[in-house]
């Protein structure tokens, strides 16, 4: 049983990594912007927006997947527009899986970044501006570096969440080997066929190792980023 992974299993592994990486990279700017809004701004509809961002935490994932299918499917309003304008199709493609993962991971990402933004003294912005930095420079030289631990934590939480995403993905993009079949979906498929137990178990082990690695890497990165921010002589 403990031999190298089969090509089909490798496919699922690589696809999982690809989907998770793309979903994190694509959602990071949006997640940061949302976290910044929640941490620094008071505006009408703030509580509602906050609740909407947090919905994926409490809703059954299948509901998110179905909503995505209705909105971003080839007949959905957004899906149609994306296809006509950019030729981009999400439904039943790996890109759709990335979108589903991004939405499921967004609340975790926003929470982590928001916490680190709230820990920054906003008066530092004023200090930087009197030294000549405009808003963009303040963002690049003060806000971003100081919130780096939160950004790293948020990105890795969202990454780990993506690796485990199942319900929204299978509902929105189905379970197509080599296209949308990520690790959890492959495990599920193996458990549904007679004699697939061993393969399912192997992929489970891969899953555990992958998630462990992601969490360990996150720990190291956060510690390093924290050292840079806290500024103890190093």
């Amino acid at each position, binding site marked *: 049983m403990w031999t190298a992974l089969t090509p089909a299993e490798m496919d699922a592994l690589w696809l999982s990594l690809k989907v998770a990486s793309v979903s994190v990279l694509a959602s990071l700017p949006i997640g940061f912007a949302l976290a910044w809004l929640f941490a620094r701004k008071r505006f009408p509809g703030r509580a509602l927006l906050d609740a909407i961002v947090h919905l994926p935490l409490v809703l059954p994932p299948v509901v998110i997947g179905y909503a995505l299918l209705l909105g971003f499917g080839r007949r959905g309003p957004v899906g149609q527009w994306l296809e006509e304008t950019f030729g981009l199709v999400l439904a039943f493609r790996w890109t759709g899986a990335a979108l589903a993962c991004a939405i499921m991971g967004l609340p975790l990402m926003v929470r982590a970044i928001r916490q680190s933004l709230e820990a920054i*003294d906003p*008066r*530092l912005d*004023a*200090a*930087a*501006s*009197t*030294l*000549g*930095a*405009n808003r963009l*420079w303040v963002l690049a*030289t*003060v806000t971003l*570096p*100081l919130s780096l631990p939160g950004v790293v934590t948020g990105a890795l939480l969202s990454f780990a969440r993506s690796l485990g995403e199942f319900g929204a993905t299978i509902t929105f993009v189905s379970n197509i080997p080599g296209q949308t079949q990520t690790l959890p979906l492959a495990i599920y498929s193996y458990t549904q066929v007679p004699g697939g137990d061993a393969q399912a178990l192997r992929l489970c082990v891969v899953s555990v190792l992958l998630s462990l690695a992601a969490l360990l890497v996150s720990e190291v990165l956060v510690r390093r980023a924290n050292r*840079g*921010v*806290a*500024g*103890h*002589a*190093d």
Partner: protein
Amino acid sequence: MRIEVDVESRLGTFTLRAAFTADGATTALFGRSGSGKSTLLNLVAGLLAPARGRIAIGDSVLFDSERGIDVPAHRRRIGYVFQEGRLLPHLSVQQNLVYGRFFTPRSERYADFGKVVTLLDLGALLARRPASLSGGEKQRVAIGRALLSSPRVLLMDEPLASLDAGRRGEILYYIERLRDEVRIPIVYVSHSIEEVVRLADTLVLVSDGAVAAAGPLREIMGRIELRRMIGRYEGGAVIEATVLSHDLGSGLARLGFSGGELLAPDVDALAGEAVRIRIRARDVSIALEKPAGISILNCLKGRIVEIGSESGASVDVRMDVAGTVLIARITRHSAGLLSLVPGQEAWALVKAISLDRHSVGFA
């Protein structure tokens, strides 16, 4: 460089309506906490926008509500030293120092890194992070950082407030050096008359969101009707003097001024250097004849100019000692016993001990 401020601003229920012009090298905005002096600084720096008014430095207009001018904070080229330093915690001291220089146009950079580091003794701190600095060190770095952005004006918002008494003297010394060596206009906010007297040429008294009085330091300090604002305990006259000599045996220095000579202990300045002495009104007594057999060393002959009209147990008496103003705070009862009247000749008695280290600073 001339700084002109004429603004109106509303923050919640607090209304600020203030106008002043600062010509001198160092202008102090003095007033109680909550009087609006820090708000004034933030308006000048562009961190707050006034409801209406005009703010200008030299010929450059920073804000003018009528002409629709509002230069954003990052383009005002104003150095700001905050009460709590506000160093960037993720950068080293060196990186903090050069942060502002990066944004200053090359042709406008006048501050020299090496000179500023020497002036403020920052050499040993360059590699350190702000978290490992003491309060006084942080404030020195904050001053250096503001200077190195080559500002047109340096604003200081109670830079000593978060420091303990020992550190205060140290930073005050650095600010004095800066004032004398860099020759950049400074606007200094404080609620400590001691700091104001040591540093400022121009004094702006701020009270309840308005300017109560503004003018040359000595003139404002000599006006007895303003004593309520300066504080009963701390108010008094300020005189400029030159150190004539030090007597090592007694530890006293002879200070010469237009009205004569004073003896004071523990003066840091060397012979020939100019100093500024604050003589608190409560430390001055009045005698009608030159007293004999008395421990008080400083007896100055002068003329009574004005007797305060305030009610209460004490009155302030303004005296003219050969052109120099002195203020004496005595009881109303004594003034009655001596039947003091303006125009009368009298002796002002000042204990040398009352002219302590906090009252004598470099001019």
